């Protein structure tokens, strides 16, 4: 058995878009596991009773959101050819999950603290005015009930405003576009779904009518200062 130290740490930046946005984190894990085998990328297996390839992800993407910037750390047996890993993996992955970059990581996964999301909202009463209402909503406290393990009821109310930065809201004639940086640290993870829930709670935008829908895309991630791009 080759010791774990002989393997080289490699980071993959990948996108998860289109139909793959409805694939849960657990299922993503399984999909990637088999893709590594197909691509013949020899990654490190855990040594336990039930050996399995070790994949370490950045914080999971919420179900239904697309992303251009997900991160996965693996350990690969040298010699490591980053370009070759990318190429062979992409051939062996579904079209909606594609590797953008393979490189030696210089940061910890925990250094990822902020994510910029774009929301596109298509609903029946869209207008400039509605966009302004949304804008002012995003600048005031928003109380969202979320699940927690800390209280007896399993639920807790939080204000998500402190976890939102530099938000813009634009109505482009077709849909309302929101761009917002949401905190995504281990301590305070603002799920993009909270924004959707706030829209329902404060403005009654519930996407229940036929033809109404929204999309969420994670565009880029930042370090703690919310300026330096995380990679």
């Amino acid at each position, binding site marked *: 058995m080759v010791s774990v130290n002989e393997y080289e740490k490699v980071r993959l930046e990948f996108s998860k878009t*289109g*139909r*793959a946005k*409805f*694939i*849960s984190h657990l*299922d*993503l894990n*399984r*999909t990637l*596991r*088999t*893709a*590594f*085998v*197909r691509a013949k990328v020899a990654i490190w*297996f855990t040594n336990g009773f*039930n*050996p399995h390839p070790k994949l370490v992800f950045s914080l999971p993407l919420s*179900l*239904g959101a697309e992303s251009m910037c997900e991160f996965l750390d693996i350990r690969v047996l040298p010699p490591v050819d980053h370009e070759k890993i990318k190429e062979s993996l992409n051939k*062996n*992955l*579904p*079209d*909606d999950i594609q590797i953008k970059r393979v490189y030696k990581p210089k940061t910890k996964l925990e250094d990822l603290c902020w994510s910029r999301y774009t929301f596109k909202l*298509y609903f029946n009463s869209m207008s400039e005015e509605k966009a302004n209402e949304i804008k002012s909503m995003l600048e005031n406290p928003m109380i969202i009930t979320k699940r927690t393990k800390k209280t007896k009821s399993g639920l807790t109310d939080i204000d998500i405003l402190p976890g939102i930065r530099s938000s813009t809201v634009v109505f482009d004639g077709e849909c309302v576009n929101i761009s917002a940086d949401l905190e995504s640290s281990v301590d305070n993870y603002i799920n993009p779904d909270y924004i959707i829930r706030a829209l329902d709670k404060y403005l009654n935008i519930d*996407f229940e009518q*036929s*033809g*109404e*829908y929204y*999309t969420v895309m994670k565009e880029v991630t930042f370090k703690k200062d919310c300026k330096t791009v995380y990679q």
Partner: protein
Amino acid sequence: MNEKYNIDGILRKVLKPGRYTGGEYGQIIKDKEKIKCRFAFAFPDTYEIGMSNLGVRILYGALNKNENIWCERVYAPWIDMQQQMKKHNIPLYAHESMDPVRKFDILGFTLQYELCYSTVLNMLELSDIPLYAKDRGEEYPIVIGGGPCAYNAEPVADFFDVFSIGEGEEALVEFCELYIKMKESGGYTKEKFLHEAAKIEGFYVPSLYDVSYNDDGTVKEYTPKYDDIPTKIRKRIIKDFDKTYFPEQFVMPYIETVHDRIVLEVYRGCPRGCRFCQAGMIYRPARAKSPEVLNRDAKTLYENTGYDEISLCSLSISDYPHIRELTDKLLEWTDDKMVGLSLPSMRADSFSRELMKRVSSVRASGLTFAPEAGMQRLRDAINKNICEKDIFEACRAAFEGGRNQVKLYFMCGLPTETEEDILGIEKLARAVVDEYYQTENRPKGRPTVTISVACFIPKPFTPFQWDRQSTMEELVEKQQLLASAITDRSIKYNYHDANVSRIEAVFARGDRRLSKALAKAAEYGFKFDAWDECFDYDKWLSVFDECGIDPSFYANREFGEDEVLPWDIIDCGVSKEFFLRERHKAYNDTVTENCMKSCAGCGANKLGGECTWCPSTNTKK
């Protein structure tokens, strides 16, 4: 508005949206413009069940190998998704292109179990396709059925244009080719096409056969409407199993499915001849693949799927003559690559400790044996040729191999069964527990012996096809008798819902008059009858009542040996005389030796092919 985005919106409102997205690795996308025949392959159950079916995987690959055909997958959306689809006017669509099923040339349903019939009709409704074949004009797809239930498809015959009888790898491609040829030559009409299709071996066009009935309700005769179509439809088989198509790639589901692994079909058919077993009869003659071919396929599939488990699949895997050679070859590379081997339920007799050790060398998998009956006399009557000693030895081997759990499958309500046989199940289970404590190098702790007891359902094309199913009262009484006999806490007792088994029995031996009940059931929104949360026995009874159908006529009546059976229109290769002989032997508690030892003259070897155990045609031993 773009249709795809509508789906996007509703997928946020349903459980497990990954069931409906498509887009998996390995799915086949073709250029619509270059395709001459679009085939929607529908599995009338959930995605997780349908994606696990090896037959679908084989046929998906075999059809798509042809450049003129594009085969796509369709599954039954779960109830929450159906509600959303109805609310937003989204018709049933195929996974690859997301195009509505209604727009396809051919819509195929695989009929794996009778309880899927209501879901078939439900899927037609979701597709906006009229249920009855006679109501469908040229603008609708040709609806074809296949799979084990097609051997007696009479209850659903009015809803289908045609059935593919037997093995479809070659037949379905021929069927599509005929369709393309007739479309290209101009003179295509649905009627002409079906008439031509009825002339191909293995295709049954029910509308071309009239059925008449006797005063007592039994079938009088089947009359073909044309002279140039067969009076009996003979099933198709693959002649050379080593050379037949086997997929080199599977569609890799994103979400977890029931059997999410490589499945190798080691051989088709079964040499055993258990008298209740339909699969053991309709897949005759038994044909095996060589270990070389299997090992090659396993390697290819491993490389192309990345799965870490290979399941060896057959009706009776330990009877495979080259099992040692095959596992040797596989273990040469699977251990290194952390790939586990697993086996389905096994017969206890030919089970060797060594085989089990081999299989568990990478990862432990469950152990299941199927004694089927508690007493030797009954095991002889049903021709389950194993004895108590075999079962104990197999269990002992399992215990010595470090396991403390075994699962035993039984049936209740078998022909000739007595109270003693039912109590025998408990005795046998207790003896297995004793065997555990007598095993010296057993693992620590208490054993768990799980006994799972199904209700006997008489199936077409078996020696017990004439026998009646026990009534509900009898079945419940037997289940309770067994429950009260079990006192040992190491024995876990599961039994099947007798209600479900009865409905299954009605449709298994049903005739065309049952279509009325199915149409009525569809009207009331029946679907997913194989699911506890959906199945409603009382509702079924009232549907039968409303349609003037007596379910006992089909389930609980002993059919006359000289009666014309609804499925007599099909020739499955095994002769009716053989079934009769076997039935009479059963009533004398006489066994029939398996095909490996001697030929019982079932007649299946007349179908030809490289039969593994059949005399005269045998070239492979």
